[in-house]
């Protein structure tokens, strides 16, 4: 046990040195870190939001809405394709109830042709040859299209991926901040913004899908029918921002997808407005529609609410326009940001929010570090008066252990949270226990009349089974915590797992090396501990 071949000595030393060096970048302020020589890895420990201060939002996508949209889009496609077919297929009795799209060709003879066209609108998903829609015929008259599970999953997945990109763009248009926007599970997006103390603005920006549409107002609609919520064919009833309802044509003339830019600006009366610039095709469409409809009102619709319906006084050919509503400078600016980043394919709602101010985080770090230093000093003192020379070895092992945990966390770019600090203190406890077990066992063996070298050898050997068993149980806890835990608990589990590994290394291998060196050099007759 105590014979260390030369290579093993160097292996232990090398491991220790590398681990300790890896801890260095994490302990330096950022400015100093950048000046480090290039050969030194600069990966370092990240501070969790509870320590650095910042906001954390967990957003959940409305998946029911995604499914609804999927069916609505297919309805549009089917209407267009049936119209385009030659000969044209007249369809009627279109239903989108019950999570499926169904319709009837007016002429039953065209049923097969309609099914063929419907089939052409479906796509294969993945390599399994599965389609995204099932097309079936019911009662030999009706075509029923149902999205498959795989199709729904694909739709939700791509909606969330787009939403993630839009969210990232809205929060950080330049892409320079250290924000985190990641998918979590099937329908969630996690947003973390370090340094942001008040997430209210963020919540407002992310709370809008920002779907902008321009549609013509249906002037022929009967006001009484509109008030009752019944729309004429080809039109729909939408609420107005100022209150009341209005009928607009279903057809979208121009949409927010064709914007190049959006800025907060001031209108003629000095009120806050949003100036938008269309791209080429958007500008052309907008010019044509305004030219054809001079004197008629045009509805500007945001997220299915009509924010204003001004009259078209003259054709607008420059490709830019202004949206005025009852905006404040702030809300106009937020809308501009949302429009620039594109619309969210699905509505998101905040289901979890936490924010910590930088001062509170700083306070936690200071107190945590102070507690850590004091606890270490107290332990060192206690170990030294209990085990003398062996207590010194224990102390060295403890310090190396602490540095190794930091080093490993640095290498893995792990995040240190408040519970992580607690985990750190606990692994120091585990490291102490390993050393205590060994030292007590050596005492015991000395008491039984063993010679120094034999006593030390037995002490390490007998104690290591208990150390091994005890640490495996901690590993089991750590793994389960990591698997099921969320956020801060995960941070705790990571530190615990790393700490267990390093404490076995320092407690058993590293200390044994120190003791072996001492025994070889000094050949003591008796052990004082």
């Amino acid at each position: 046990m105590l014979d260390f071949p030369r290579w093993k000595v160097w292996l232990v030393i090398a491991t220790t040195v590398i681990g300790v060096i890896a801890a260095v970048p994490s302990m330096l302020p950022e400015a100093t870190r950048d000046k480090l020589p290039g050969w030194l890895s600069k990966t370092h420990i990240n501070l969790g939001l509870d320590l650095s201060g910042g906001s954390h939002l967990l957003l959940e996508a409305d998946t029911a809405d995604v499914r609804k949209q999927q069916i609505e889009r297919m309805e549009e496609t089917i209407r267009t394709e049936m119209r385009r077919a030659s000969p044209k297929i007249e369809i009627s009795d279109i239903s989108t109830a019950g999570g499926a799209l169904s319709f009837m060709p007016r002429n039953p003879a065209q049923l097969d042709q309609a099914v063929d066209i419907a089939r052409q609108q479906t796509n294969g998903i993945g390599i399994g040859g599965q389609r995204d829609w099932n097309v079936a015929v019911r009662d030999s008259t009706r075509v029923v299209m149902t999205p498959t599970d795989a199709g729904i999953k694909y739709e939700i997945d791509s909606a969330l991926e787009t939403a993630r990109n839009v969210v990232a763009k809205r929060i950080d248009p330049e892409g320079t901040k250290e924000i985190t926007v990641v998918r979590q599970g099937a329908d969630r997006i996690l947003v973390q913004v370090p340094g942001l103390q008040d997430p209210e603005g963020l919540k407002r920006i992310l709370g809008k899908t920002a779907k902008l549409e321009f549609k013509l107002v249906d002037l022929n609609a009967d006001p009484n029918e509109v008030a009752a919520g019944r729309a004429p064919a080809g039109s729909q009833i939408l609420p107005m921002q100022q209150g009341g309802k209005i009928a607009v044509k279903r057809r979208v003339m121009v949409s927010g997808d064709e914007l190049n830019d959006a800025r907060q600006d001031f209108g003629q009366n000095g009120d806050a407005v949003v100036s938008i610039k269309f791209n080429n095709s958007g500008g052309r469409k907008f010019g044509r529609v305004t030219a054809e409809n001079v004197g008629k009102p045009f509805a500007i619709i945001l997220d299915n609410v009509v924010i204003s319906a001004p009259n078209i006084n003259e054709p607008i050919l420059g490709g830019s326009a202004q949206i005025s509503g009852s905006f404040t400078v702030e809300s106009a600016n937020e809308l501009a940001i949302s429009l620039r980043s594109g619309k969210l394919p699905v509505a998101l709602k905040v289901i979890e929010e936490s924010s910590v101010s930088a001062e509170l985080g700083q306070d936690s770090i200071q107190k945590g570090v102070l507690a850590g230093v004091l606890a270490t000093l107290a332990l060192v003192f206690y170990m030294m008066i209990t085990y003398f020379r062996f207590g010194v070895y224990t102390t060295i092992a403890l310090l190396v252990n602490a540095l190794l945990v930091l080093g490993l966390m640095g290498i893995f770019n792990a995040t240190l949270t408040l519970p992580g600090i607690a985990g750190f203190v606990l692994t120091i406890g585990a490291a102490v226990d390993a050393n205590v077990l060994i030292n007590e066992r050596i005492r015991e063996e000395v008491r039984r009349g063993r010679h120094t070298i034999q006593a030390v050898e037995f002490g390490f050997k007998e104690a290591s089974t208990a150390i091994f068993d005890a640490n495996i149980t901690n590993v089991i806890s750590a793994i389960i915590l990591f698997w099921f835990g969320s956020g801060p608990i995960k941070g705790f589990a990571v530190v615990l797992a790393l700490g267990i590994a390093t404490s076995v290394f320092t407690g058993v291998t590293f200390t044994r090396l120190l003791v072996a060196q001492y025994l070889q050099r000094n050949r003591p007759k008796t052990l004082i501990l």
Partner: protein
Amino acid sequence: MHPLKFVPDNTNIRFLSYRWWALALSILLLTSSVALVAINGLNWGIDFVGGQSIRVTFQKPVNMGDLRGRLEGLDVGDVVIQQMTDPKVVSIRIPLEGEATNPIGKCLGQGIGKEGQADGANKIASTVRAELVKSYPGVNIGAVNSVSGKVGCELFSTGSLALTLAMLGISLFIWFRFEWQFGVGALVTLFHDVVLTFGFFALTRLSFDLNVIAAILTIIGYSLNDTIVIYDRIRENLRKYRKMEIEPLLNLSVNETLSRTVTTSMSLILTLSILLLVGPDSIFGFTASMLLGIVIGTFSSFYISAPVLIWLNVTSDSFVQAETPKGAAERISESFPGQK
């Protein structure tokens, strides 16, 4: 100068003779814990029941009644206001209105929380924040935490699952490394420790949140540590002294490891006390429960883990036949001339 020793050499306390008293004490503690949880209830953190907690630092100490009046005027539900040791710092807790304050019935009984209230918590956070900023200029909102009922349920069920799985996993491991009696002993010990920890939280009304799950798992880990050290020694002694009765053998094992138990517990108590006194107050509950866990864990490894082995009829045959080749025990005792 001599090294410090709290436990003199060759200490021989007959711990196991008191096992019936200890059992009575354990049963008393277990029943009172269950009663406390049933009557007092746990102070569920908003992690589990949904709602928000806000930590605010005012410019100067504020009138609590005044603050309470303002917040209740917002009509956001029950407001729990608590002043910290620093009178300028106030913690505000608002559980979700209309939701049960006990996640067990809510999450397990009626399925996941209602969809309609999923973002109710979040709106309230915005309302309260706006009111505080308006009424108390210069206020510093230190931390806001808001969780919807649905997420609360998820956190609760994954937390309970993690706890159960960890206990089972650890017991299985001990069964595998030792014998089935030891596995049962460990499971009973863990159960004992967890129930007492719940009782502690019901008694002190400390907030029972997500971090506490981590604390309980750590308590389990440490209690297990003690148990395993003693079990390891029992296993060793069972092989060494094949003729010894089980009770003196357990006493011997506990005494032989006593010095280690005391030293380790002392160093942990030292470390945790410092963390409790100067550490960040957001982990106060965590540290407090850990401290208690060390005491419970040491007690239970002496008086639950060890006596269970008597009650389950462990003898030296449980090991020697199964794992050591014939004659090994004799060889071991020969190499210890000082002992029999």
